[in-house]
């Protein structure tokens, strides 16, 4: 049971961390923003509290120190600095670690945390002169108490029946005074004369001014058991403690003598908090928005969504079987029913896939974080612009996309954007720009990462490739082909693998990972001007429009998105070909015979040869199949872990009649062919 709560706590805290990071980013741009500071303080506060409650003692201890820091900040004892923001960023990493690990057991971890806490504490001492460091704490606490106080006007208008059933309103008013400095105004003008007095009825109305650090809810809770018997308003009237100030006293006595209740507006003109109304109103609105948000969306485990998508996929498969049966039986009732089911299942499918889409936004924070940290480390000044962050993608795609994207960004910062001096010397603005852009393009999503850095010199790449023996010294390559060499396994533009982008992953891995999610990467670059890396992705992984073809005794699906054209060739055209290159419409195309790739027996002379022109990595290659059966929209199923090594096949589809067709990964197919050559 408690484990369940713990898990929930961790999950929610992870969300909070996300929020926290966002707030930090914003704070970095606007270091005086009180609202953000408060948000960060609150986040630390709830991590501390929750941590203690759910047995994350080290987390609780750790966040306690951060909470103190931000308590100082919000009370003006400490100024937000870049250092402080950096420290907090790394603290977020530590919190993340603590949430994942729970309490630390390794001596090393415990030591690390100790050191970290000392770093945090250093902030509290460095900024204050050492002589009064000891007294600072208590003094600041006191001041903190005062400055975080806000003032409220409580209007408590009970019904006559209030006093029945044992309620004693005097206690409630007394309880308000326990929250902070308070001043009660009792309006007794409604008490009738003795002759008509109903002695056990309530005739009084109260207004209470209170300056307290407690929340509005805490105040409302005082009246929780009388809420049915009264009208209650609690309004924020000032961001500071105002009870006791002469202006307030004047207002109160005026109200008492006139028997006219005070309104929040009466306090607007006060000198104590000229701007207090604005934030208060905004706060309320925000709360409302949050509440609405809670109702309009809910958290569902990704497991359940996977399950839903699987079930829907199965339904689509079964529905295809049904359609086949209906076609064969020619029963009009069944045919029309089948059509309806087909319509419904298509809608259901679209719906289910829509649910499994999540906005790219969820990962962007990590990117921002990376750009920020790296540019700081390398003394580079970079403007990171994100466009289209609200674009939605299949969650499996997003999961697999993060690492490659991080790597590309690292490259941009590490190798692309120059130091400010270099940029000025090159006639550019000292501040570099990295643009992250995501947008739809047909059934695909395109993500582009471009920078205005120094670009890639094709000559350097070529020399490097020759040096490494990746290409022949006398090879003739155009610029595009040279840039493509970056994706060849084992290529790196720097001899010393930097700490930054050289974390074991090169562009070859990027391309492979993107290919795993049926995406494609291309690179363009202009020396001295910048680099553009473009990633083309399918919208979803689990369904594709495919061309069903036969090779040997098996059926295969080739994704339509990869197909350029289909040709029916005379066998003689192939006979004239040389080195697996065929000439069609006076263009030369390399080609692959799937029979050979799949080690099927040589086919006896066919009358026509079906050649499917497949494009991958901007090249077109012919693929020879036995037969083209037709277009199908199919659900792609994984082959499971035992067939992982089967690179050319990316999955399988179940056809309407229950048979299985294998889905060909065209970019792998072409890639493998290149290697063999």
């Amino acid at each position: 049971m408690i484990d369940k709560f713990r898990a929930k706590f961790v999950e929610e805290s992870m969300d909070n961390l996300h929020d926290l990071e966002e707030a930090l980013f914003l704070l970095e741009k606007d270091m005086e923003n009180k609202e953000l500071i408060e948000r960060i303080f609150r986040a630390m506060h709830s991590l501390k509290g929750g941590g203690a409650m759910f047995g994350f003692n080290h987390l609780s201890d750790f966040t306690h120190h951060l909470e103190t820091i931000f308590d100082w900040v919000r009370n003006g004892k400490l100024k937000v600095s870049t250092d402080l923001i950096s420290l907090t960023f790394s603290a977020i990493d530590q919190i993340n670690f603590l949430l994942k690990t729970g309490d630390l057991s390794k001596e090393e971890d415990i030591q690390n945390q100790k050191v970290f806490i000392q770093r945090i504490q250093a902030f509290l001492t460095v900024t204050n002169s050492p002589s009064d460091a000891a007294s600072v704490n208590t003094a600041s606490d006191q001041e903190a108490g005062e400055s975080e106080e806000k003032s409220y006007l409580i209007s408590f208008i009970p019904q006559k029946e209030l006093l029945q059933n044992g309620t004693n309103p005097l206690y409630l008013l007394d309880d308000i005074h326990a929250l902070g400095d308070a001043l009660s105004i009792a309006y007794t003008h409604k008490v009738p004369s003795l002759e008509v007095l109903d002695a056990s009825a309530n005739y009084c109305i109260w207004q209470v001014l209170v300056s307290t650090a407690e929340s509005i809810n805490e105040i409302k809770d005082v009246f929780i058991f009388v809420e049915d018997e009264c009208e209650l308003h609690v309004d924020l009237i000032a961001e500071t403690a105002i009870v006791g100030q002469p202006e307030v006293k004047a207002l109160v006595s005026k109200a008492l003598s006139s028997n006219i209740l005070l309104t929040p507006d009466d306090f607007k003109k006060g000198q104590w908090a000229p701007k207090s109304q604005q934030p208060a109103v905004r706060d309320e609105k925000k709360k409302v928005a949050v509440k609405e948000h809670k109702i309009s969306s809910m958290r569902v485990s990704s497991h359940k969504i996977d399950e839903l998508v699987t079930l829907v996929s199965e339904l689509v498969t079964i529905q295809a079987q049904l359609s086949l049966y209906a076609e064969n039986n020619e029963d009009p009732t069944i045919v029309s029913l089948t059509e309806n089911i087909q319509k419904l299942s298509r809608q259901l499918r679209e719906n289910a896939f829509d649910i499994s889409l999540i906005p790219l936004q969820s990962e962007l924070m990590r990117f921002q974080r990376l750009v920020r940290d790296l540019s700081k480390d390398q003394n580079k000044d970079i403007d990171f612009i994100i466009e289209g962050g609200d674009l939605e993608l299949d969650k499996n795609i997003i999961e697999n996309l993060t690492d490659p994207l991080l790597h590309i960004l690292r490259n941009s910062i590490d190798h692309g954007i120059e130091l400010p001096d270099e940029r000025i010397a090159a006639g550019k603005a000292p501040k570099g720009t990295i643009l992250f852009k995501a947008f739809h393009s047909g059934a695909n999503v395109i993500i582009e990462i471009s920078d205005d850095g120094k670009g890639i010199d094709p000559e350097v790449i070529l020399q490097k490739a020759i040096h490494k023996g990746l290409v022949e010294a006398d090879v003739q390559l155009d610029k595009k082909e040279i840039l493509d060499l970056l994706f060849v396994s084992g290529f790196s533009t720097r001899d010393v693998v930097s700490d930054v982008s050289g974390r074991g992953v090169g562009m070859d891995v990027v391309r492979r990972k993107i290919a795993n999610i049926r995406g494609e990467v291309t690179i363009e670059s202009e020396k001295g001007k910048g680099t553009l890396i473009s990633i083309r992705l399918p919208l979803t992984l689990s369904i594709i429009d495919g061309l069903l073809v036969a090779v040997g005794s098996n059926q295969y699906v080739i994704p339509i998105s990869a197909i350029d054209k289909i040709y029916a060739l005379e066998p003689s055209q192939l006979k004239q070909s040389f080195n697996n290159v065929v000439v069609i419409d006076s263009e030369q195309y390399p080609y692959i015979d799937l029979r050979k790739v799949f080690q099927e027996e040589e086919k006896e002379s066919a009358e026509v040869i079906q050649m499917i022109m497949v494009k991958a990595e901007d090249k077109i290659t012919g693929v020879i199949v036995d037969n083209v059966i037709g277009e199908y929209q199919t659900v792609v199923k994984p082959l499971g872990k035992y067939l992982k090594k089967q690179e050319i096949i990316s999955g399988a589809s179940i056809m309407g009649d229950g048979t299985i067709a294998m889905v060909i990964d065209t970019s792998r197919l072409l890639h493998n062919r290149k290697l063999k050559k």
Partner: protein
Amino acid sequence: MEAHDITLLSFQIQEDTFAVDALQVDHILEVPPVITSVPNTPSFMKGVINLHGNIIPVVDMRIILDKKDITNGADTSIIVINPTDQQDARLGVLVDMVKEVIETKRELLKETVLEGKKGMIDTFEGTLVLNDEFIHVIDLKNLTEVVVK
């Protein structure tokens, strides 16, 4: 309830009897008319089948155990095992005949001493002697490792 009770599913491969942990068996299937072959795979990988909309690879246990003269008969079956309880870890194992479910105790398993080569299988969990018959209990972890290799 005693902790050492085990349940085994025994099956026949030619003259030998083997068994697997019954708790890791998902289904027992007749051999479907078509097992879709997957190109460029080892000979023991018979292909994939469609089990309730999921793709399950099927291996021929007889080839893995290096048997000769393999024929499919009316009793040939596929035992679908799921050693890790994950969807993508299910594996169909083609055997000559499924025999019975045996309730026994782990203590009764003896160290397997097999004369001659047993194909690609390196280790067995043990051997149970039941009515003068040797039942070799297959180590599914080892089996899946062989298949992934």
